[in-house]
């Protein structure tokens, strides 16, 4: 029944809409680079002939500032795009629109916490190896 879903296209906001489009295009580029770097370019050169990702190999890469910046930047972009997408889906439902403030705060908390977690789990590669 259509009346159970209210007109929600304006709930999410114009900035969220614009950001979602911009980040989408950027993520296509960075995801392609991420897959190439992780699986196809220079993998196994440091540690052997197997195309297998190892702790030592990732550590060698994460000694470079470029990899650290791109990794953290990409995680930020993925979280903003993913959680903003989740927010858009949720706001198609009346029960979530009613709690818009709470959901916005909760998603920011989840996003920031996950970003911090993401940086923490990269530390062993940066400091060790």
């Amino acid at each position: 029944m259509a009346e159970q879903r209210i007109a929600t296209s304006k709930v999410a906001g114009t900035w969220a809409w614009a950001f979602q489009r911009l980040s989408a295009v950027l993520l296509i580029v960075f995801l392609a680079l991420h897959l190439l770097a992780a699986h196809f370019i220079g993998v196994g050169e440091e540690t052997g002939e197997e195309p297998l990702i190892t702790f030592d190999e990732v550590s060698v890469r994460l000694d470079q500032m470029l990899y650290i910046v791109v990794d953290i930047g990409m995680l930020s972009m993925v979280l903003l795009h993913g959680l903003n997408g989740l927010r858009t889906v949720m706001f198609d439902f009346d029960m979530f629109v009613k709690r818009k403030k709470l959901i916005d705060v909760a998603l920011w908390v989840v996003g920031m916490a996950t970003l911090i977690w993401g940086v923490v789990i990269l530390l062993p590669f940066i400091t060790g190896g």
Partner: protein
Amino acid sequence: MKISSFKWLFGRNSEFWPTNMKTGMLAWVGHRLSGLVLVAYVFLHLSFISTASMAEDGADFNALMETTSQPLFVAMDFLLVIVVIYHAMNGLRVVLFDLGVGIRRQKLVFWVTMAIAAVLIVGGLLAIWHLVFPAGGA
């Protein structure tokens, strides 16, 4: 909340029942479902990487990378490739429409982006094949 209040979503007369959907609606539902899968995957991805924090020399991480190179996980990687490429190509279609490009031929644009997606998925399969069976090996 009663189950019956979800009839608009799951019922045979629902506009979301697969055979009741037109092209644009099918693409829209597919975009949301694939998006939700990808959000879940990001957290799985981070939890796998977090194994590097468990042992001093990254032994747990290496063991997990060994496990995830087994056929079952590689097959799931291919499923992930399908979901990512669908979401990316359909997302590109949405961006094009928001820029005012191709709206008048929206069905054609959908099938063109899906054809590109199919080509990329085959490319992904070949790339995975190359990783599992490196040239000269197999």
